[in-house]
């Protein structure tokens, strides 16, 4: 299983069913996962397209979307931040 976390505006359009998923056979990299997510929920795909999206894998910033996704990973999708 892979845990998916959608923050900020992404959380508003992410269906509950995406919180935990069985890793689809055709998803090998972070880039694959992002595209798969966009197909599952087009509004989420559009929201990610419309802004800068950062991926965090197991609490570490993913700089390279060709990195592999493995069973047991937690992947978070972050829109631009607005703290302070």
């Amino acid at each position: 299983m892979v845990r998916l976390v959608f923050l900020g505006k992404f959380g508003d359009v992410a269906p509950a069913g995406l919180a935990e998923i069985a890793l689809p056979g055709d998803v090998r990299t972070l880039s694959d996962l992002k595209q798969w997510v966009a197909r599952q929920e087009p509004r989420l795909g559009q929201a990610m397209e419309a802004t800068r999206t950062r991926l965090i894998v197991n609490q570490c910033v993913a700089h390279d979307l060709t990195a592999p996704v493995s069973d047991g990973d937690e992947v978070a999708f972050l829109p631009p931040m607005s703290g302070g």
Partner: protein
Amino acid sequence: MRICIAGQAFDPQAEIAAFTQGRDDVGALASFVGYCRAATDGVAVSELRIDHYPGFTENEITRLAEETVRRFDCPDLLVIHRVGVIRPGEAIVLVAALSIHRASAFDAVKVLMDYLKTDAPLWKKETGPDGARWIEPRPEDHKRRQKAEEG
């Protein structure tokens, strides 16, 4: 150094008092508190919600605070950031720096606030009469962040 993600309302002045307690070795305390305003640009705000990513948010803010401490040779730093639902009048963020001299205390607070605006994993949603909207950093926040980096 104390970094806290607060799920409940906090009393900024009580927190600062506890932070400075017994520190007669430092001469300067600079601080900033950002409050939830009742209106933004004349539009009423009924509620502010801040999302965070548990674990990652704490770690990132700690990293930014450590960078600030090193850069300004600041003996101690306090950061409290609210998450969850925040009502007008409540404190959103508190940054306080203790230092030997006032310039480094000021600079530490100012630069860390700039970092938090653009680099802290937090997401603000404002609810007003026209519904809710997510806030994104304004171009001037990024410019200020850039300047903080260079300065």
